[in-house]
């Protein structure tokens, strides 16, 4: 999986890696722009979630609106991550380039990570634009007390999405039913991540599970940053979980891809 880059000096390898990451991110953004699924996830879904959450609610204050808006933004970000990661390798398989991507000179994890990064960046921007327009149309006030902290939270969100994308991408290397698997993952995480449903409503085992989802902590950090005093402890937990996802994703993807290459079974999926 390392390729011939191992012969280059460490700094050169780092720059090459960043270059591959950015090129793949750019490719994925170009591909997403021509894909209709992104419209479904980043345009239809935020509008529907926002209306379903806000309209029946009696509390339409700025604080409540902010909590809902952040919850919807994170839910949509997660759905886009799951679908984005799914589409990355599904497209490779459909085009017959999966085996080449996984057996090429460039580390396949950089390709998957870069594509996940591109998907996460573009889908989050589209989702935020949709949310802004819908909130304005509904005349729903929201708070932006600490814009800098919100930006930091979003950078961690995109990093987290890219790392999780690598984990989900691993599934696509071993099964042809990856689309069903990624679709299955959408609602459990939205439900247990506490983005729209407070996690204190869950029984203890589920609330512990909820604590392992970075989006739950990002929700807390983004909401507290938007309404007043940012909870940096929540941000730190989210960063730690993101690092754990990335390490897990790099290990799992590498291991699964290596096994598939060794068995020569890539074209079977």
């Amino acid at each position, binding site marked *: 999986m390392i390729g011939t880059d191992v012969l280059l000096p460490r700094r050169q390898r780092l720059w090459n890696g960043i270059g591959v990451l950015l090129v793949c991110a750019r490719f994925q953004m170009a591909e997403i722009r021509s*894909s*209709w*699924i992104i*419209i*479904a996830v980043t345009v*239809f*879904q935020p*509008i*529907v979630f926002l*209306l*379903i*959450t806000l*309209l*029946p*609610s*009696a509390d339409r204050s700025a604080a409540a609106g902010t909590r809902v808006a952040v919850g919807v933004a994170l839910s949509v970000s997660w759905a886009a991550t799951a679908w984005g990661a799914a589409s990355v390798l599904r497209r490779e398989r459909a085009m017959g380039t999966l085996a080449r991507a996984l057996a090429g000179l460039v580390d396949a994890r950089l390709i998957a990570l870069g594509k996940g990064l591109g998907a996460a960046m573009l889908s989050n921007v589209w989702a935020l634009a949709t949310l802004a327009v819908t909130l304005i149309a509904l005349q729903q006030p929201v708070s932006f007390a600490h814009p800098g902290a919100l930006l930091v939270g979003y950078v961690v969100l995109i990093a987290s999405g890219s790392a999780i994308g690598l984990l989900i991408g691993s599934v696509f290397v071993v099964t042809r*039913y990856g689309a*069903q*698997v990624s*679709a*299955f993952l*959408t*609602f*459990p995480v*939205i*439900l247990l991540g506490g983005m*729209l*449903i*407070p996690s204190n*409503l869950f029984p203890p085992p589920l609330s512990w599970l909820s604590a392992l989802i970075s989006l739950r902590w990002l929700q807390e950090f983004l909401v507290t940053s938007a309404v007043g005093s940012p909870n940096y402890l929540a941000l730190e937990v989210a960063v730690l979980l993101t690092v754990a996802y990335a390490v897990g994703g790099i290990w799992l993807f590498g291991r699964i891809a290596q096994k598939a290459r060794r068995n020569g079974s890539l074209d079977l999926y």
Partner: protein
Amino acid sequence: MAASTSTEATLAGVRRAERLWRSRQIIRFGFLQYLSANPPAIVLATIWPRLIFQTVFWVMLGYVAAGSDGATFAYVGAIATALTYGGIAGMSDVPVDDKFAGTYTRLLVGATPPTPVFFGRGVAQLTASVVEMLVCLVAAGLVTGQWRTMLALIPLLPIYVVIALSMSAAGLACASFCVGKRAEVAIYNGLTYLVILCCGALIPPGTLAALDVIGVVLPVSHGLVAVRSALDGGPWLAQVLLEVLVGLGWLALAYVLFQVQAARSRRTGSDSFS
């Protein structure tokens, strides 16, 4: 003369028997196609859990928005929205599978025209959607503590089946839109979200007039009014008939659109669906 009439009657009988055989084969193929794309292990491990989580999510969102009454309201509606997975998204895959496999040309020159083929294959998706709805009714009802409402809904299941039929009719019409475009994902997701938003499943009717106006022509809306009214001991038949009417409207639209698409493909040679 008598011999000729007897021969015609025999021929008509043979043709009828052949049509019946073809219909059974088409429906059977639909089930085989469904099982090939969704083997039992995948249905049990991903599709059903996903729909259960989705239903539980809507119920809990109802609870967060409006307490226990909100949860019950959302539960009754969320069961119906579970039908969108097989009835709209799954149904759209019926012609799209031919699109990807490049087999639409064969359907165009086949003895049975594409429209009845798609209608017949859709039976599998309709059946799957009803099974998925029942799974959500029981599992989400137990998980969210809505078992009293669940038991009260059991006698009303025939109304949900009517909703499933009208949903599948709308799904077929949606599928026919997917034939001529490369935007099937956006088209069926668009209709799915429109149904979830406008049919009064999760947002009470009367909250936003625009949603109610759109909901009048969508599946689920009238059926759910009937279910909620029946739960309160009120009249329900008129709304069920309206739901049937909406379903027939969508079915007619699906038929016309499939016919138009097939005629256009024969005329222009656009067999790969543009």
